[in-house]
């Protein structure tokens, strides 16, 4: 019953994109996000698109799965698009009806902002689709390590994230099972008005919360039974080391960033 949740779902693989060190991937994603905000015209977006297509092809992911990650936020994108289209200021009026005024500038601006959102989502989806959640939190812990100096609980935070991520599929599976069990007793989750639907969620949410708390409890006990005591003095089984592919990827991104900056300077 729950099928198409792609946002944040990892697709295992062994492509060069998959093999890039998670720390490097986080850095590259940060660079990519900077780049999306730096871009000032559609030629710049062309550059971003080329980069994104290149990485996607290299990763062996189907384009379909990339696009599917847009689905959950399609409404937000459309909303910002129309908001900008109606309310951004401009001179050359294309369409006017009562208080609704669409100008050439507002249309351009709206399309530009919507595309920015699309590129942001696609780029970060590529990160989560090609990096296992464990590797991702591992990388994050390393990247955030300097924050330890100001007593920020980096290890605890990343452990919490790891556990949360680990349990998403489990909880989804559980949700599916409870939904089916209640449907077998005639529960109806899909029809009725908003209030009826909210009420119909109770038979789903109560067992789900109970089982989530039970799992949390069991996990805590299991961790303590194996002497878990936080990050202090903890060694790692997998030590991250930068490889040639990491430096190559960094080079590629830096080159693109430089090219875009240079192009904007020259124009």
């Amino acid at each position, binding site marked *: 019953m729950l*099928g198409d949740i792609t946002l944040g779902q990892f*697709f*295992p693989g062994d492509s060069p994109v998959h093999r890039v060190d998670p720390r490097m991937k986080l850095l590259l994603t940060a660079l990519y996000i900077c780049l999306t905000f730096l871009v000032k015209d559609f030629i710049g977006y062309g550059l971003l698109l080329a980069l994104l297509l290149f990485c996607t092809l290299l990763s062996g992911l189907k384009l379909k*799965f990339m696009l599917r990650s847009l689905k959950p936020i399609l409404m937000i994108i459309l909303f910002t698009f129309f908001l900008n289209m109606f309310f951004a200021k401009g001179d050359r009026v294309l369409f006017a009806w009562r208080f609704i005024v669409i100008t050439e500038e507002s249309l351009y601006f709206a399309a530009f902002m919507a595309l920015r959102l699309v590129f942001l989502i696609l780029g970060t989806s590529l990160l989560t689709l090609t990096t296992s959640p464990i590797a991702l939190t591992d990388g994050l812990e390393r990247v955030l390590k300097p924050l330890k100096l100001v007593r920020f609980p980096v290890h605890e935070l990343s452990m919490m994230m790891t556990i949360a991520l680990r349990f998403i599929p489990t909880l989804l599976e559980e949700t599916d*099972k*409870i939904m*089916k*069990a*209640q*449907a*077998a*007793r*005639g*529960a*109806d989750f899909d029809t009725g008005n908003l209030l009826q639907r909210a009420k119909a969620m*109770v*038979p789903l949410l*109560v*067992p789900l919360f*109970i*089982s989530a708390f039970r799992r949390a409890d069991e996990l805590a006990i299991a961790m303590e039974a194996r002497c878990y005591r936080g990050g202090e003095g903890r060694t790692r089984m997998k030590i991250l080391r930068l490889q040639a592919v990491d430096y190559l990827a960094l080079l590629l991104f830096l080159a693109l960033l430089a090219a875009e900056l240079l192009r904007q300077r020259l124009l």
Partner: protein
Amino acid sequence: MPIEVSHLSHVYMPGSPFSASALEDVSLRIEDGEFAAVIGHTGSGKSTLVQHFNGLIRPSQGKVLVNGLELSDPKTSLKEVRRQVGLVFQYPEYQLFEESVELDIGFGPKNLGLPKDEIAARVRQALADVHLPEELLQRSPFDLSGGQKRRVAIGGVLAMEPSILILDEPTAGLDPRGREEILSLIQGWHRKGRTIVMVSHSMDDVSRLAERVYVMSQGRLAMEGSPAEVFSRPDELLSMGLDLPAAAKLRAELAKKGFALPKGIHRMEEIETALLAFFLKGGAA
């Protein structure tokens, strides 16, 4: 009317890298009033199969006909199907959610849109059917013992008064006494004329209760027949990761020692009578 499955296949998450084929070209027929058991190794598709019987999974390939209702037809009312076919999931106690046992058992009848007094009557009947005292009605289902919770959950399905009852591993995780109690309840419901489909990992339970056994292996229906037929093919069962009932194993051991008891024996009572007959005939080791 019977359950008829023809050429049923099912793939989970088709078109993704996680796609898993859970059923492949399964055809079977379960007659009215029959006690059918579905056995098979973990992951062989038993749960997937039985979830097709009440429309929780709509057949994507092949057909399922239950009490004359065609489940692959999108116009078929799922509510009607679920009224006639009750499905008790693995660990059904995890679906309890109401404040009181009464409300939880009444959830199904309420969804059927029955009037209040009818719901109350059905709740009482269901409680009696699972042999729980009426004092429990006002208790919270979360305060009960594991075995009691399971019975309340099963009662919640019985309260819909289905003519076909499907139970997915109803005794998993219960102590021997709890198992016996649940099994004898199931047997009682069968005697009253209900069709029972039970998924089970216990060969002993199956051999004792079932009239017909369906053996699943890697998404296919590998064998079907009476318990005597199925349990007289031990090599195939073992190769599918299954076991034999204790009585069938005993028969094999006795055969090795020279007590040639007839093949297909799978119940302890049968061993007893066969041994008696063997000695009366004057056979010796």
